[in-house]
């Protein structure tokens, strides 16, 4: 019972599509020996109801608050639930692995920030920047990821994280543009791309496609709000800079 709920909750907070969450709940519930399994998931909550062969019905509600994008967790639970329903692993093993997954995935690794800087470089080049701009965008992108990772340790809303990230990127790019011959817009643009809400955008599309209008729209709204917040952060600095 708790196993099913836990797996569903982890999938949901990692950014999985709704049909995957509900399908996993159903598959695992049946494998655990329940005759009828009903799951209802939205991005902010999870309801499951399990019918035991004896006629009892167990129902649980789980409110999910903060989401962190973790595709590795989605992939791991996906294969775990398959193995469980094929009887290759026991309930106890699944429980242990889920607990390990909850612990793992520390989002604040140095490596992540360095690699993110590489992403910022690539985007500056995609948008037509030169190598000098790309290098600075890479440095700023890594710094922005560090700032956002620091904010994530406190209960700062996602929107504010994005706005502060945008402000930081823009301020650094404008400052560097005073010293070096770089284009501040292209540098900022590459750097803020590391905050793109890519998971929310893509999941929203897939949710809408499978008829999950509620989650599709709320995830699309999340992506939109985060993007607007980034732009607002950048805009505040640019207008303070007097352009």
């Amino acid at each position, binding site marked *: 019972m708790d196993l099913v709920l836990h797996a569903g909750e982890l999938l949901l907070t990692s*950014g*999985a*599509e709704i049909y*995957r969450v509900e399908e996993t709940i159903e598959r695992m519930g049946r494998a655990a020996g329940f005759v009828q399994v009903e799951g209802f998931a939205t991005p902010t909550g999870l309801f499951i109801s399990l019918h035991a062969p004896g006629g009892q019905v167990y129902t649980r509600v789980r409110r999910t608050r903060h989401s962190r*994008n*973790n*595709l*590795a*967790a*989605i*992939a*791991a639970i*996906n*294969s775990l639930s398959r193995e469980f329903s094929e009887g290759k692993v026991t309930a106890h093993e699944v429980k242990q692995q889920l607990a390990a997954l909850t612990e793992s*995935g520390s*989002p604040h690794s140095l*490596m*992540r920030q360095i*690699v*993110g800087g*590489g*992403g910022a*470089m*690539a*985007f500056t*080049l*995609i*948008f037509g920047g030169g190598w000098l701009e790309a290098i600075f965008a890479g440095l700023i992108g890594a710094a922005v*990821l560090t700032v956002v990772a620091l904010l994530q340790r406190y209960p700062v809303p996602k929107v504010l994280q994005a706005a502060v990230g945008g402000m930081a990127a823009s301020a650094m790019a404008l400052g560097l543009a005073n010293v070096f011959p770089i284009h501040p*817009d292209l540098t*900022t*643009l590459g750097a*803020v*791309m*590391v905050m*793109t809400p*890519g*998971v929310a*955008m*893509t*999941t929203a*599309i*897939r949710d809408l*496609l499978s008829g999950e209008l509620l989650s599709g729209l709320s995830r699309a709204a999340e992506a939109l709000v985060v*993007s607007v917040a980034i*732009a607002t952060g*950048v*805009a505040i600095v*640019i*207008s303070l800079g007097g*352009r």
Partner: protein
Amino acid sequence: MLIQPLIGFVGAITFAYIYRVPAKQRIFAGLVGAVGYTMFLLTPQSWGEIGTVFMGAMAAAICSEILARRRRQPVLVFLIPGVIPLVPGGQAYLTMLGFLQKEYAEAFVSLVSTVLAAGAVAAGIIVASSIFRIYSSTKHARR
């Protein structure tokens, strides 16, 4: 011009890292990004921005669906990093700048093209995924 696909590859693989794609799948996520971005560049300019972005997103989504089945992974693992190079971040930035500088006419033009390009990415994914869903439902259990 090998540099452009390479940039698409780097963009996608770094985002695969940011979104924590499983280590073994990152290379493939990067390849999806390279394919999508190359398709976007190869589509004739006469198709307009929407057409080129659409073709790029569709190519990336088709690759993601195939890889997801081959490598037994959720589609999202490849799809999310794969479409990242096509996101209209530059247009969105221009929109913001336009509004700031009170050039509303130009700002609205780039707002519309941002929204349309984002819609084209969505449409590309939807078309490709729908094809695979129809294919799966006629064959066997879907992933």
